[in-house]
């Protein structure tokens, strides 16, 4: 039954997969799988595969599984079964069609949120295994088109959105000018060598959400922060190559980021409200380059706001009135331990925080992260159908009075906008900075 239901859903047309598999030969598939599973992978993968007792206890961790009426094909281990187990069992002798399915499963039916790692009694990291599958698919050239295009953008421009070198600087100067209408002496200091902080953002900010740059500049200015932004590539902390399995491009993009900060000789990098970017600079990209921890401390926006409020660098004039609920993004909460700091910030700027359940480390994923939303329109329904449980969770919080949904992560933000709209939840989705900008005391 479940098998049939699954087949029904498979009508997605994705050139990245459909054309990609046409270039495959059985030999190439076998060679690449062997290269990754035997050559690149090591003890972790081996231990994970051989320790797993197929108990199925990871299932309930996964929002896809919960949202698909507990269809076991969507359980974390179920996805491993459909991909890695088969590759291992067949010693890499799998068909092109199999690779296409594996790519779809690994790239669009798993947000690598690592919630399941908290549910496996052995702490098996299934997200890591899904990323290994994506790595194989990358080396075979079978990656969903939209995210592959994004990886190309990273490779060319070192940013996510094909923002050209000059467009970036121009946008910053434009936002500086805009903000000067509000605070005439406000500056976005470019290339200020020796500043305390380099502020880094993700590609969509200059491309579509320039108001976030504006807000950040105002917050920095009001708080009297010694900050700068680079006028060279390396300003973008995001990294979709990390999610396509193109580790080499991931490393290159992260190197540009860290070397830009090192060139500017800043003490710390503060980044905007993005989750996967945090993962890429704090966890994955730095490691590929050989840094155990980021060479320059990375401060996520939540942590930074916490610091500003705690140290009274900014004053809250009047708290935000409407009841809010908070979505805990996987990469900064489960991946960065900022759950309590996020609550400190929200409580400092909002009258009422209504918790959704589960929350903190146990919050349900937005279903957009891990590169899934970046796989583009073909998979929008994958995300919607794959996260009914999130809609239910949000609905429950709404029924207890929450009106505003705070999502301090770009992917979560966009993903939850879609969920909100698709399920008609009637929330307004906001970043913390949207509210913070509104409630802080600014020079009149």
């Amino acid at each position: 039954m479940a098998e049939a239901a699954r087949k029904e859903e498979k009508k997605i047309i994705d050139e990245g997969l459909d054309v990609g598999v046409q270039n495959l030969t059985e030999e190439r598939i076998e060679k690449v799988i062997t290269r990754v599973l035997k050559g690149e992978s090591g003890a972790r993968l081996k231990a994970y595969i051989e320790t797993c007792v197929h108990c199925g206890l990871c299932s309930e961790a996964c929002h896809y599984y919960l949202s698909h009426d507990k269809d076991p094909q969507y359980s974390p281990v179920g996805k491993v079964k459909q991909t890695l187990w088969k590759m291992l069992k067949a010693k890499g002798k799998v068909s092109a069609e199999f690779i296409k399915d594996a790519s779809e499963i690994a790239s669009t039916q798993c947000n690598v949120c690592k919630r399941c790692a908290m549910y496996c009694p052995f702490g098996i990291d299934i997200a890591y295994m899904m990323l290994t599958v994506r790595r194989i698919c990358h080396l075979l050239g079978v990656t969903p088109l939209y995210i592959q295009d994004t990886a190309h953008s990273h490779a060319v421009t070192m940013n996510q959105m094909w923002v050209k070198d000059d467009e970036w600087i121009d946008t910053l100067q434009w936002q500086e000018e805009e903000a000067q209408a509000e605070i005439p002496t406000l500056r976005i200091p470019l290339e200020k060598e020796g500043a305390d902080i380099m502020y880094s953002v993700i590609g969509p900010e200059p491309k579509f959400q320039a108001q976030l740059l504006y807000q950040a500049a105002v917050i920095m200015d009001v708080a009297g922060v010694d900050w700068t932004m680079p006028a060279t590539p390396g300003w973008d902390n995001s990294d979709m190559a990390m999610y396509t399995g193109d580790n080499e491009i991931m490393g290159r993009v992260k190197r540009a980021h860290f070397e830009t900060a090192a060139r500017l000789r800043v003490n710390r990098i503060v980044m905007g409200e993005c989750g996967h970017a945090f993962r890429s600079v704090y966890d994955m990209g730095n490691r590929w380059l050989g840094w155990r921890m980021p060479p320059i401390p990375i401060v996520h926006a939540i942590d930074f706001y916490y610091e500003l409020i705690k140290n009274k660098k900014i004053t809250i004039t009047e708290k935000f009135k409407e009841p809010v609920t908070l979505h805990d993004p996987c990469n900064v909460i489960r991946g960065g331990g900022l759950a309590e700091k996020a609550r400190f910030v929200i409580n400092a700027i909002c009258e009422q925080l209504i918790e959704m359940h589960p929350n903190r480390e146990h919050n349900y994923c937005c279903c957009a992260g891990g590169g899934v939303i970046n796989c583009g329109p073909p998979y929008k329904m994958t995300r919607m159908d794959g996260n009914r449980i999130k809609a239910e969770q949000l609905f429950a919080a709404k029924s207890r009075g929450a009106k505003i949904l705070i999502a301090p992560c770009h992917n979560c933000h966009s993903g939850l906008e879609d969920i909100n709209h698709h399920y008609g939840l009637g929330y307004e989705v906001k970043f913390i900075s949207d509210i913070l900008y509104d409630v802080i005391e600014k020079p009149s």
Partner: protein
Amino acid sequence: MLTRIEWDWEPGSREIADISKWQTQFNWVEEPCVSPNGEQVAAIVNLAEGEFNVCVNGKTWETVFDKIWHLRFAPDGRPVAFVSDTGEWTVAVDGRTWTHKFGYVWDMMFSPDGQNIAVAVQQDMAYGMALNDVIWKKTYSNLTNPTLSPDGSSTAATVQVADFGEGEIYKFQKGVFSVALDGQTWDTAFVNVWKSAISADGQKLAAEVRLNLYDYTIAVNGTPWSQTFDCVWEPIFHPQNNAVIAPVRSGGKWLLAQDGQIVWDRNFVQLWHPMVSPDGNTLAAIVAPKYGRWTVAVNGRPWSVTFKDQLSEAVFSPDGKRVAASAKSDGRWTIVADGVVWKNRFDRVWPPIFSPSGETLAAKIERNGRYSIAVNDHIWDQVFDAVWDPVFSPEGDKILLRTLNNDRYVRHVVPVEEILH
């Protein structure tokens, strides 16, 4: 332009400008920058809404601009900035603008003597480079990684040679990027071209390229090395023999290659920023011999001392016999020279500078928000709100120091002996 030997090397301190006065004069004063010889201090100043100028030693340029950014002194002491007037951008040198105007200008580069100034330019979404007000004859739909030849006579950059639309991943993967030397691209295009280098004689151009999504190598004058790798970092030219040297990745480890052949007998977790000593005899690079441990390898042998956080800006002494770098462990900076670490730790330290003889090593340092310099692990007893990198006299017995305290910019010449005692 005065050569370094002609600068004022008389020991003593001299106040050049009181910037606090400028602050009363203008709406705001941006970050000051100073000339190499320390005789000038300049800053972008705001006169009124949409009115900017550059103030040098208290005097403004003749022309007021809508917007100014990236003010820097060229090595020859001329202040240079990007300026905008009625929506057009150009370069202003000492207050005089280039004749060419652009949609945008950025990435300012100087030749070591400061005589050549190169920038990246964009006009009507067509991209190119300009050197001393001379623009490339051809333009491209995108341009990244601009570079200048060692003598500053040639420019190069990665350029996009064919158009592709959003989502046209297969067109992209056929290769639409190349590199242009003085505007002329190679005949070959690649999936990606990143940083490039121009040989000392200006005849050769080498760049890191990606042949498909997975195979990387170095291409020289359009011809890729016959060997491919899992990844590469940017190449450099050997200053004497024009050999191309680049870090390459194979089997998950980094190696050093010269003209496609592996030259160091061991691999590293990371290897980048290779450099050749001025005499051409020594090859060094920043390496991670172990995961999360950073140091310098000289001729393939890493120093035994390693650092946890980072190691940046290794430098050779002018005679090529010594190597020094700034390094950080557990958030504390220090200097390491020839594998020997300074005892002092700093909140921040800037790239170290060798005296002409290589005997003395100096660096700008920060402790508790105040700045000073340290020489051979001795910290000068004076602290400032800001200092610029120290400059050695030609004999190496004196140091030129450019400092800022209470917005007063002061030029000091300090005998090295004074700091060491």
